[in-house]
């Protein structure tokens, strides 16, 4: 069996949205402009709390990580700010990795703001953050009010450079870009992970994105597309890594699959079929004009992904049925069936990481939990080294310290003395100034 890392994804969808056959009365699709009349505060709270509970459960079950995303101004995912959600997840979990895939850089006015959030969440989570940097769904550019999709790719590239430089280079330094001119890049606080949290890039297969991942050793998260298209893209990615002078390790490719595990194949279909259909018909359905906001993709990508047969959204997703999906990226069935399919898929893709969507947007929490548990106990151990531990339980503790005594032991000593000038003009060490005999001029 292939050795795999397991990341469970949850969408935090607000499922009480109109079906595709009637949504046209209010909006072209559920993207972008579904009226706020459909929003109910109690249901939204429930959707979000279900998501949090599922995330907590994945840690107890021994998944390597939780993957979550952000969407803007749409019921398809109400966790609209991935870094805010990550901070909360950091507080309600202990050890599991938190993959925020992710904050949409182009929804930020400045990448410096995101760098601060990344650093903060990395500190709060004790170095458990994985940072995903998606371009953002085309349709959502309509509701940011920040970035022009026609400049999105260029701005994204530059924002990413600034973000990584802010996290890796000591400030202050000046950044002179086309979109961002920051006279003093000087990040406080800084991420715990060195040089920065691992970066994953979700990509439908555009060459420029694959080159970016290959060059920077980012994880290529394989999104959309048929298995044939994905395999072609992964092969290209591996060639690009070779050109950069290294062989991509298996865990530099993250496969994405829909999944549902039940007692039997038949039971898995009974449980999941309607929810998978719901996702295809309501969650993913958008118009060409929304998916491809002007300039959001290059001409080459448009031809390759949207207009070529077999490419991303070359047909209406919502017409995809169970039988077609089970031939593709849907792993559904008994633990035995899912084990076989997972082995086949990850072998085909040379993938060492899998992002598994146990949640299909409308799947109830009890059903997700059941599927998660069957998977964790009957499938996951087969793809792990002896002992079955998740990666976060195998190595050293990622925390810089766990007790005050350790903190004192590992800190080499501050680089500056905290001092203050008193009324008489004396500059004192504030750490000892409350003790009369120690209140004396300090050597700075």
């Amino acid at each position, binding site marked *: 069996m292939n050795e795999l890392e397991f990341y469970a994804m949850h969408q935090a969808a607000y499922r009480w949205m109109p079906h595709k056959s009637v949504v046209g009365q209010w909006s*072209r699709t559920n993207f*972008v402009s579904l009226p706020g009349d459909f929003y109910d505060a109690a249901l939204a709270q429930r959707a979000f709390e279900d998501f949090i509970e599922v995330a907590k459960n994945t840690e107890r079950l021994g998944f390597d990580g939780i993957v979550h995303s952000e969407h803007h101004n749409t019921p398809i995912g109400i966790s609209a700010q991935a870094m805010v959600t990550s901070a909360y997840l950091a507080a309600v979990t202990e050890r599991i990795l938190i993959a925020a895939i992710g904050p949409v850089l182009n929804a930020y006015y400045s990448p410096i703001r995101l760098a601060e959030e990344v650093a903060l969440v990395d500190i709060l989570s004790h170095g458990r953050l994985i940072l995903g940097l998606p371009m953002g769904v085309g349709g959502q550019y*309509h509701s940011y*009010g920040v970035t*022009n*999709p*026609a*400049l999105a790719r260029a701005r994204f590239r530059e924002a990413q450079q600034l973000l990584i430089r802010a996290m890796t280079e000591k400030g202050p330094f000046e950044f002179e870009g086309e979109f961002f001119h920051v006279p003093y890049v000087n990040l406080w606080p800084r991420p715990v992970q060195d040089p920065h949290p691992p970066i994953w890039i979700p990509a439908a297969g555009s060459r420029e994105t694959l080159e970016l991942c290959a060059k920077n050793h980012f994880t290529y998260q394989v999104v959309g597309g048929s298995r044939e298209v994905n395999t072609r893209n992964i092969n290209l990615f591996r060639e690009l890594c070779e050109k950069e002078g290294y062989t991509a390790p298996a865990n530099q490719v993250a496969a994405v699959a829909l999944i549902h595990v039940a007692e039997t194949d038949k039971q898995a279909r009974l449980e999941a079929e309607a929810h998978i259909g719901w996702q295809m018909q309501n969650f993913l359905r958008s*118009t*060409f*004009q*929304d998916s*491809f*906001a*002007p*300039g959001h993709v290059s*001409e080459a990508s*448009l*031809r390759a992904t949207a*207009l070529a047969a077999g490419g991303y959204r070359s047909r209406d997703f919502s017409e995809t049925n169970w039988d077609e999906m089970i031939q593709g990226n849907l792993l559904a069935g008994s633990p035995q069936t899912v084990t076989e399919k997972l082995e086949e898929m990850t072998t085909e893709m040379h993938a060492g990481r899998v992002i598994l969507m146990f949640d299909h947007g409308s799947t109830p929490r009890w059903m997700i939990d059941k599927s998660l548990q069957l998977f964790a106990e009957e499938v996951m151990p087969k793809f792990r080294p002896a002992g079955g531990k998740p990666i976060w339980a195998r190595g050293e503790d990622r925390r810089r310290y766990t007790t005050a005594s350790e903190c004192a032991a590992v800190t080499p000593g501050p680089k500056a003395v905290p001092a203050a000038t008193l009324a008489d003009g004396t500059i004192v060490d504030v750490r000892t100034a409350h003790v009369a005999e120690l209140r004396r001029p300090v050597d700075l």
Partner: protein
Amino acid sequence: MAAQTAKWPFYTPPTVIDVRGLATGYRRAGTGPVVVYLGGLNLWGKWLPFHGALAAKTDLTVPELPGFGEAALPDWLRSVDDAVLHLDDLLAALGISDFHLAGQGLGGWVAARFAVIYPRRLRSLTLISAMGLRVKGSPLYDYFRMTPDEADGILLNGTGGKYQQELDNGDYVEATVRTFKELTAAARMAWNPRYDVRFDRLLERVTAPALVIAPQQDRLVPHSHAERYADLLPSATLRVIEGSDAPTAHLALLQEPARLAALIAEFVVAQEELS
């Protein structure tokens, strides 16, 4: 480039010249007063009956704006002003210095901005369904999200069936790629905001006589925008283009090519006679 070999009804090959490194196409015909006409979001790469009718009475030049028609989308196109400066370069290369400027839709915005920057260069300004203004509470229809199914209702108020030839853009894939490029060019100029609030102050600079033409039922650019242009331009007349068998729509130039051309030509000739 694939677009250069693509063919569709009313396609004519443009004359192409190099303008500061950008191969820029234009179509020119007719004799009489010199008129430069800037098209809108749609109908590029065509010499339509409207163009023919206008060229019957004027010396008409129809340039391709950067990113539209067969023109590549240059990296430097970031705003309407970039299109204005490129137009100035093109006209200099063509030796056109004293002329009447007209524009439709987005082309109307470019024309109005050209007039603000070079107010003394124009003999007259004609705006047809022009974008570019903010009229609070009366926004443009969101053309960036408009689906092909909606286009007929928005652009031609449901009369599109009569203009299948004019609307035919040839091969589906090539037309989709070209339209995407044109919308990208439009987004570079006008994604956010989709208006230029400076016009409220600066249109006063446009001293040339102006004609503001509005269709009877423009579902893309509300009538209030034409009224606002007519208010802000110091010497403007507002005219509504009437339909012979149906109320005119945003693409009145397809519905009433001769009538629209006559309206513009009469205005242009009258300005020539006045001067």
